[in-house]
């Protein structure tokens, strides 16, 4: 009797272990799939296109061209989605901070509100003020969104999910985002409105001044990694996130990024209480929508860069990489919104003196200390 029981027990245990390991394999395969779902999709598309192109007898150039458009569509989808979601998120978060509900009529919890907003903006009358410089007035919102879209192409959204893994990734981002100052100047000048002019001048001064601390704060990270390539930087954070190695740079980056995005407490260009709507005063309908999309696109871009450089990019246990990336970026976005709805606005001269006299020396000191640290680390072999 005992003999039979012993055999039966071993049989059950045997199969339990087999099922357990089979399940573990299944889960890990699913996780691998989820982690690489976009990469696998892209490579499948690429193989499909290559097959079609081979069948038609064309060169592989066409494959690359179509893939570029696919990537562009993906990035545009991300930006549009981000703009829609953030519009609602901003209103809901601001409402909860201000002890009220926010939009809750259109769809459950206000979830369809962005769609209603989009329809409203698309159907608004397109007004061009008399005396405005027509060409520049129309061009400005079109130009302002281009650098933002371009900058997304080097950001690693997950493992292997970069559109173009440029070897000067972060440098490319700096160069492109500097271009956003020109459309603001164009918008401010062309509207023939004193508020727009003041707002445009202020915003350009602010953006130009705060680019320098932005660049210098990220220099420390580049020095530690030894490379400008964003995927390398993410790889280098496998052991420890750079936020622990570069806390001062992180703080400087957050402040400079808020100024670059023209968000409170640095939203002087649209200081609502002083300048009605500043640069955006004379823009209606879709033109204004483009400016708003740029603002939210910039916000997501800056949060994505912060995640990549300081919070370890897409690294994270178990769940897919792009999910962790999204989570960390969302955390930053929430933090930026929290700041916006809590602090008063800085005055323009205080803003400039803070940027030039405090942030730049601090970021330079950070670069110096980082260099020293790297040298000592290499020398002493800590």
């Amino acid at each position, binding site marked *: 009797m005992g003999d039979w029981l012993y055999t039966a027990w071993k049989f059950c245990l045997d199969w339990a272990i087999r099922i357990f390991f089979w399940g573990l394999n299944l889960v890990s395969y699913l996780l691998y799939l989820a982690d690489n779902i976009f990469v696998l999709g892209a490579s499948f598309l690429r193989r499909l296109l290559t097959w079609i192109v081979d069948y038609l007898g064309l060169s592989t150039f066409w494959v690359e061209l179509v893939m570029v458009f696919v990537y562009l569509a993906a990035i545009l989808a991300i930006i549009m989605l981000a703009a829609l979601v953030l519009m609602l998120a901003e209103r809901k978060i*601001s409402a909860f901070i201000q002890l009220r509900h926010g939009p809750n009529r259109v769809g459950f919890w206000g979830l369809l509100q962005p769609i209603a907003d989009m329809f409203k903006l698309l159907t608004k009358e397109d007004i061009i003020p008399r005396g405005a410089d027509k060409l520049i007035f129309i061009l400005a919102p079109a130009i302002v969104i281009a650098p933002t879209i371009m900058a997304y192409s080097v950001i690693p959204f997950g493992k292997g999910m970069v559109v173009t893994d440029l070897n000067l990734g972060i440098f490319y981002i700096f160069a492109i985002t500097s271009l956003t100052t020109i459309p603001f100047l164009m918008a401010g000048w062309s509207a023939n409105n004193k508020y727009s002019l003041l707002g445009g001048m202020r915003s350009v001064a602010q953006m130009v001044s705060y680019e320098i601390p932005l660049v210098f704060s990220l220099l420390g990270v580049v020095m530690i990694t030894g490379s400008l390539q964003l995927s390398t930087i993410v790889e280098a954070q496998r052991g420890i996130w750079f936020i622990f190695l570069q806390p001062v740079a992180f703080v400087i980056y957050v402040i400079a990024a808020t100024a670059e995005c023209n968000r409170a407490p640095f939203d002087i260009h649209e*200081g609502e209480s*002083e300048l*009605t709507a500043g640069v955006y005063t004379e823009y209606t309908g879709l033109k204004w929508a483009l400016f708003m999309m740029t603002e939210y696109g910039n916000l997501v871009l800056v949060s994505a860069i912060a995640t990549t450089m300081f919070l370890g990019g897409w690294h994270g246990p178990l769940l897919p990489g792009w999910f962790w990336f999204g989570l960390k970026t969302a955390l930053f976005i929430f933090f930026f919104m929290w700041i916006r709805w*809590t602090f*008063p*606005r800085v*005055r323009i001269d205080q803003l400039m003196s803070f940027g030039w006299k405090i942030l730049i020396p601090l970021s330079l000191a950070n670069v110096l200390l980082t260099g020293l640290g790297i040298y000592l680390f290499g020398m002493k072999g800590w």
Partner: protein
Amino acid sequence: MGPQHPSTHGVFRVVLQMDGEIIKSGNSVVGYLHRGMEKLAEARTYPQFIPYTDRLDYLAGMCNNLAYVQTIEKMLRVNVPARAEYLRVIFAELMRIASHLVAVGSFVMDLGAVTGIVYPFNHREKILDLCSMTCGSRMTFNYLRFGGVSHDIPWAFLPRLNYLLDYLEEGLKEYHDLVTDNEIFLARTKGVGIISTELAKSYGLTGPNARASSVNYDVRKNHPYGIYPELAFDIPLGEAGDVFDRYMVRMLEMEESLKIIRQAVRDLPEGPIQAVGISKVIKPPVGEYYHSTENPKGELGFYIVSDGTTKPYRLQIRRPSFINLAILDQVIPGVKLADVVAILASLDIVLGEVDG
């Protein structure tokens, strides 16, 4: 900065001559809300004018009622019963808190922290609930009458008032935490828009604006009225006379008002709320009479010339916001545009009072 502007606290226009960001000179243009109250008064009987006084400083309606009603009581030599006096003081101080909440809230909002207006208005809602419980209205109360008040407080009033006083104390602590110690706030307000004591006195500033410039003048202490002589409270004074001091004086005055209300509630007697023996037709004796009270915005005075008939011959209102606003053109040359908004918000004007 035209009549339609998010930060001019109403329809008010300032023509600014600027050199880049710096103001060279400013020219205030008022009158966009002029409704001809003083002229209307000459065609109304004395009791008929009480609702008009609500519309002067519409953020603190009962205080305006009080000034006017006390002027007429001075003319008629009426004795107001004790319960009515205490009720008047309770409501006057509640109105002071309500007005200062709006002042502080819109001030912080004009500086950029848009959230800063929602929390004070939450507290103000509860004050307005108390008022509407008593007299039915939230903004234009028409509560006071010659010789007393119009309605007695309902039984639910005192418990809610006591709860509100504790709620307000906590709220004020929260504001100090969020605003008073904030670096950006201090950088925007300290040393900005300094009004010296001599300048304040020569322009006739009254109220928290003057007290922030160390002018020790409060009508409740210097020319006491009602039962204020029996109440113990302090007058907060500022030192530098800048925007921060004006904000701080208002915050401290709110705490003093809480003290006054607690004392009045403790000593509230029973009794009639209206004096007897006042005729239905008011015909004050011929002469000129002036009486002023401490409004939340400053010293509100009524100067009435009576010719013995039921309608005043001339009624002139010393409007504190109008007189306080005159200093704006003096203070703004040399500051930046953002400071103009901060200074205007710190002067705490109400266009209903400025234009009358």
